[in-house]
């Protein structure tokens, strides 16, 4: 390949990168406008109902002795009739006191029916497939073990299934350990933007709000009918979301169904989490992209949103490639100095404020949530640029390796931030 042709290829690549960035920037900007100044679509949380749907609540656990009691106590205190409620904590090959804690609660509370997974592949998706077979009730709600749902939350999530077209529901996750360090503060901002603005806007605009795997639920028979959860996935939530949409079902986002969670406070833990999300999400993208594009149940704009949703974890390496191409073009003399600098700033700036840290979405979210001083932290989101790009890109390379080598995926649990419970606690 001669130098001129190579330069043209790189220049074309940079143009594509800029076009992709513009599309995502417009999308995020549209979402922010929708949330701030357009009609907000109501969810079903204001419905009062004497005949609540029977639900099974699932809490996957692997070495969760530090948080298991809190999660179970919160669920047992739910404002939900016990005869309409079943709680299945899944002990996924724990090696700590989780097993004994679950046994203790099962003895005391008939509605607690633990599932003990003793051998085989670990992972939420495998456990959920077992739950699909043993759950007694038609609606399954899923919580992570470190979540402590309030008493009204089950009601609020269950109400979404009033709509016969709804296949899944998603609530809002709010970090509890916000003030611990820089990472938790930045993740808190990201979560606000992601839920308060991004998810609600997609719901407002009749696009594709996402089922998020926790603080959410789905119709059991429906998931069984579409083949259960793929065992070769690390992002069973994304996978389920797109499969539901592709077959004409809807996901409801319930912004006021809120639940505290703990976000990672160590950069290494966050790196692994993001890498796993990227790997799982990209596998889901490869598996479902054509189904979304070809779905006859979705409008053009919904399909476009679905494609952008699926590609979101494939973008960072594309952008890093754009930066590299920019540098190469600069040294080849094929790009004017000013243009090269501007494009470099554009890519870095966009990724800092537009993609993984959509600054206007976060700003809008903080406005809606009443955040005042925390908005000053927005410039520090710049620090997440390289970090997020590296973690997500690592996930992309994992995905490529998985595909090329037909490699099985292995579940990697996110480390808990909460301290171990005191010895002798009842």
């Amino acid at each position, binding site marked *: 390949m001669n130098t001129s042709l190579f330069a043209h290829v790189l220049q074309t690549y940079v143009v594509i990168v800029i076009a992709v960035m513009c599309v995502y920037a417009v999308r995020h900007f549209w979402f922010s406008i929708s949330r701030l100044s357009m009609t907000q679509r109501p969810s079903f949380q204001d*419905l009062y*109902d004497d005949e609540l749907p029977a639900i099974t609540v699932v809490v996957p656990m692997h070495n969760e002795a530090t948080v298991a009691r809190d999660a179970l106590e919160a669920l047992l205190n739910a404002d939900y009739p016990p005869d309409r409620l079943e709680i299945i904590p899944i002990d996924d090959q724990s090696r700590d006191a989780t097993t004994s804690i679950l046994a203790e609660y099962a003895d005391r509370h008939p509605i607690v029916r633990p599932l003990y997974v003793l051998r085989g592949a670990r992972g939420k998706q495998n456990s959920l497939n077992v739950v699909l077979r043993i759950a007694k009730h038609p609606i399954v709600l899923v919580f992570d073990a470190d979540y402590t749902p309030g008493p*009204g939350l089950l*009601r609020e999530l269950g109400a979404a299934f*009033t709509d016969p077209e709804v296949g899944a529901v998603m609530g809002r996750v709010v970090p509890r350990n916000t*003030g611990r360090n820089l990472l938790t503060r930045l993740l808190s901002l990201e979560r606000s933007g992601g839920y308060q603005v991004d998810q609600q806007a997609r719901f407002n605009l009749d696009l594709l709000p996402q089922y998020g795997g926790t603080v959410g639920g789905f119709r059991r028979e429906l998931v069984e009918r579409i083949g259960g959860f793929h065992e070769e996935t690390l992002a069973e939530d994304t996978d389920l979301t797109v499969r539901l949409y592709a077959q004409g079902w809807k996901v409801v986002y319930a912004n006021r169904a809120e639940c505290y969670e703990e976000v990672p406070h160590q950069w290494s833990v966050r790196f692994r989490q993001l890498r796993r999300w990227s790997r799982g999400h990209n596998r889901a993208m490869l598996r479902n992209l054509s189904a979304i594009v070809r779905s006859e149940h979705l409008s053009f704009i919904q399909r476009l949103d679905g494609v952008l949703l699926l590609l979101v974890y494939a973008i960072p390496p594309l952008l890093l490639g754009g930066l590299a191409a920019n540098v190469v073009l600069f040294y080849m003399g094929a790009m004017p100095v000013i243009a090269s600098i501007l494009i470099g700033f554009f890519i870095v700036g966009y990724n800092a404020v537009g993609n993984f840290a959509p600054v206007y979405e976060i700003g809008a979210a903080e406005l809606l949530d009443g955040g005042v001083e925390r908005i000053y932290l927005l410039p520090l989101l710049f620090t997440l640029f390289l970090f997020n790009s590296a973690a997500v890109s690592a996930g992309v390379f994992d995905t490529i390796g998985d595909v090329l080598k037909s490699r099985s995926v292995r579940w990697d649990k996110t480390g808990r931030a909460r301290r171990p419970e005191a010895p002798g606690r009842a």
Partner: protein
Amino acid sequence: MISLTVTIIAFAAVFFAPLFMAGVELVRKRDAAALPLTPEYVREPRFFARSFREKIGRLADAPAGTPAGHVLSRVDDDVHVVDELPYQARTTDTRVLVVRGSADYPKDVVMRDHYVVGNASGGERLRARTILVEGDATLGPGLRVRRWIDAERSLTVRRGSGLGLSGSAGGPVTLEGDVRFTRVFGTPVRTAANGGAIPAAPHLPGAEIVDAESVHAADIVARGDLHIRPGARVHGSVKCHGRLVVGAGAVVDGSVTVRGNVHLGAGAQVTGHVFSEASIVLSHEARVALEGARKSVYAARRIVLGPEVTVWGWVFAERGGRTTGA
């Protein structure tokens, strides 16, 4: 040289100022707490009454005639306990009052928060902020409530009244003509035989049709408008992405979820929820939910209740509702 130095300093200031502010917030942690949720929150149609009773209910046993001080945690709350209403027509009272007996309100009274241990009646053109009644309440006409009203047994609201944010009762709620409301909860909520015009059902050209007098035994999902013709029976829930008209005497044995407006014809019945992202009209003798299985009529915009409508449960209009009447 000086201009270059100034330029560099200006650039550095512009570049580092936001980072400096971020650093200050990071160190001082002025806004580092988790977003305040209310995890104990539970959807409860009579929440206001329960909360108010918890604060003020114990005063029902306090000696009459003595000021009880501040019990509502507001500096301007001046709570007094009385055996009987000390009001005459056109009285204005800024106190929070605990009435240990029944209260028969004269005309044109302007008052604040009242806790009535017995029954409440009268109240023509009564202006109040809050009323909690432990017995039966029959108030109006022309009652104006700014915040909420609740009766432990039954609540009857005469014509031309406004219920503020919430009107509720442990038993039946009866609304006469031209009553304005936002949320009403009762077992059941009924409207009286009022006059007044009910908005006509919209014409829906191109709508999907459920034939008159037919029986449909499955959920229905309509991509556009849907017209369930008179006398039809649907055993299942309905989802409609456009507008929905349920004809006279038709029955939906399930819930109704609609993106557009909903119009329930005369005598039409829905046994589940009626949920609309726009507005809802319930015509003459329309019924929603069943005794012992309370549900909701929810509209993101407005609700119009015609005469002799019955709703077992909650009627909730985000932008306000009204009963028909002159």
